[in-house]
């Protein structure tokens, strides 16, 4: 009797283990195997097609060429850094020697002026896009809340928002450039004009999705919650802080994610034309450079741009998960 029970339990245990293995196998297949297959097919098709496209700058780069460029870009970065370190060491030595000779000597310290490496350019791009995006959020979210609260304001401004929303950054850029040149005049500028131009273009383009989503989120707040606020006679500030803002956080974040995506796309175009030393400029310079490596280097930049865009979206998603009370509204 007891042995049969043991048998049954052991059977169920093995069954359970089997089930578990099956389930985890299915999970692994879904999470790892399928994407790997997809990527492999893509790489295969890419290398096949690349071989048959001949441009004036040589063959279109396949995956191999791009990987090679990645390592060469990294190598360039390292050598550039070593040069910089060597430069500063030489400078320090020279200054020390001069000071030893003449204690009153006013040592000049000059910054290294080598060209930006690919990694520097990535960082410049990230800084620019973040600044532009934050400036947009700073304007768009309060404005969107105001529009959501005030139906008349919403009706008055909605046409303007709708018209400006689809405007390409390339259309804004000349205007922004001229306005920045005219207004941003300073002998000792804190940031370069090209940075400001790219940043403002990013701001102008990423403003609208945030305004629209925020105002939509605010105007769609459950009327029962608004009634609660009325019964409690909350003043406007408490009303916004305690009811409106938390209630519309999911929509605000949806808008912010959309905007950040737009901002990153816009940035590359803006940097190309404004010559802000970021990824856009890198692509443009390589294109103008026209060496046999150029296309592979541009392709490497394309991959990096895509990856960073993806990562930025993930970061926003995590932020949204952390801030939002409504976990069901947070979808990848």
């Amino acid at each position, binding site marked *: 009797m007891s042995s049969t029970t043991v048998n049954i339990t052991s059977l169920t245990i093995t069954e359970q283990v089997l089930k578990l293995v099956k389930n985890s196998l299915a999970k692994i297949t879904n999470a790892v195997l399928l994407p790997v297959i997809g990527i492999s097919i893509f790489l295969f098709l890419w290398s096949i097609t690349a071989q048959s496209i001949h441009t004036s700058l040589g063959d279109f780069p396949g995956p191999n060429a791009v990987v090679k460029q990645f390592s060469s870009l990294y190598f360039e970065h390292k050598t550039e850094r070593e040069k910089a370190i060597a430069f500063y060491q030489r400078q320090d030595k020279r200054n020390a020697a001069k000071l030893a000779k003449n204690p009153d000597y006013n040592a000049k310290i000059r910054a290294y002026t080598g060209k930006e490496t690919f990694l520097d350019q990535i960082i410049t791009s990230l800084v620019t896009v973040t600044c532009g995006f934050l400036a947009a959020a700073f304007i768009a979210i309060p404005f969107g809340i105001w529009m959501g609260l005030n139906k008349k304001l919403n009706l008055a401004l909605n046409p303007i928002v709708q018209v400006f929303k689809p405007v390409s950054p390339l259309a804004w850029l000349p205007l922004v450039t001229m306005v920045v040149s005219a207004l941003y005049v300073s002998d000792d500028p804190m940031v370069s004009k090209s940075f400001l131009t790219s940043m403002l273009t990013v701001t102008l383009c990423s403003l609208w999705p945030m305004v629209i989503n925020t105002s939509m989120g605010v105007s769609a707040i459950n009327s029962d919650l608004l009634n609660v606020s009325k*019964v409690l*006679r*909350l003043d406007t500030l408490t009303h916004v802080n305690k009811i409106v803002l938390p209630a519309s*956080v999911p929509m605000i974040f949806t808008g912010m994610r959309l905007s950040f995506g737009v901002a990153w796309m816009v940035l590359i175009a803006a940097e190309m034309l404004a010559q802000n030393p970021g990824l856009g400029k890198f692509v443009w310079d390589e294109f103008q450079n026209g060496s046999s490596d150029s296309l592979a280097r541009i392709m490497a930049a394309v991959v990096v741009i895509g990856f960073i865009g993806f990562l930025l979206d993930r970061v926003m998603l995590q932020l949204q998960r952390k801030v939002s009370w409504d976990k069901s509204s947070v979808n990848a």
Partner: protein
Amino acid sequence: MNNIKRTGPEKSIENSFESSFENIANNVFLNISQVDMVFPTPTGGFTALKEVDLQIDKGEFISLIGHSGCGKSTVLNIVAGLHQATKGGVLLNNKEVNEPGPERAVVFQNHSLLPWLTCYQNVELAVKQVFNKTMSKGEMKEWIEYNLKLVHMDHAMHKRPDEISGGMKQRIGIARALAMQPEVLLMDEPFGALDALTRAHMQDSLMEIQNELNNTVIMITHDVDEAVLLSDRIVMMTNGPEATIGEILDVNLARPRSRLSLAKDIEYNRLRSEVLTFLYEKQRKVASISSKATAPQGSLPKQRVNAK
């Protein structure tokens, strides 16, 4: 009639028929006076309420019952100040009601808790707003916890609304309303969304709380048993448009009431069948226009008609 302890002396005077004129006088606690409500529609005004007139004493528990769409909620919203009556108005302590306020706390049908706050914080928001100047921080904390204890929710006060059941959410909603120490508690089908067992449980809790606090309550309900069990008076409304008060039924059942012993009570069953008769014979929802025209006002039995 002497055994209605709970309602106090002024109630028993009100119940005697000589004083019916006093109802119209200005010393009524809550006076819903000749209220008309017309909603604008593209095709002209829609008259939802016509000459709704009701006087309520302090400490009275009133149920509003009627078919869906008869304007019960509109009456409640006008008392709450969320709607403005087109004609007539509401006086609370001889002061006109024209905006919402915490002295007329509302328990909403779907609880309306702020989902991003814990139960405690939901009540706290109300308490901070109402007792900001009169209570210290410690007193507020005590008062919030007292109210949560009153609805038996002190064990889950740091949970979020989505972590507790529907009945529990409604308890928190009631605690929030009670914590405002309202002069009138307005309840819009507070238990309508709950299952029958939970509802019965909530009704018992509400009776227990009423026993302790003796609030003035207006409650909307669809449930005949609930109305008879909880109320001092049941206000039955005719079907809209132009809905008004059809009959008012006094419920003179001794308190505390128990649903089990009342189930066999003759008076309880008589009251129940009165309400059912009103709802399903006199105000049948499928009624043709003729029955609607004959039912209200004219042919009413001995019950108190809305004072006119």
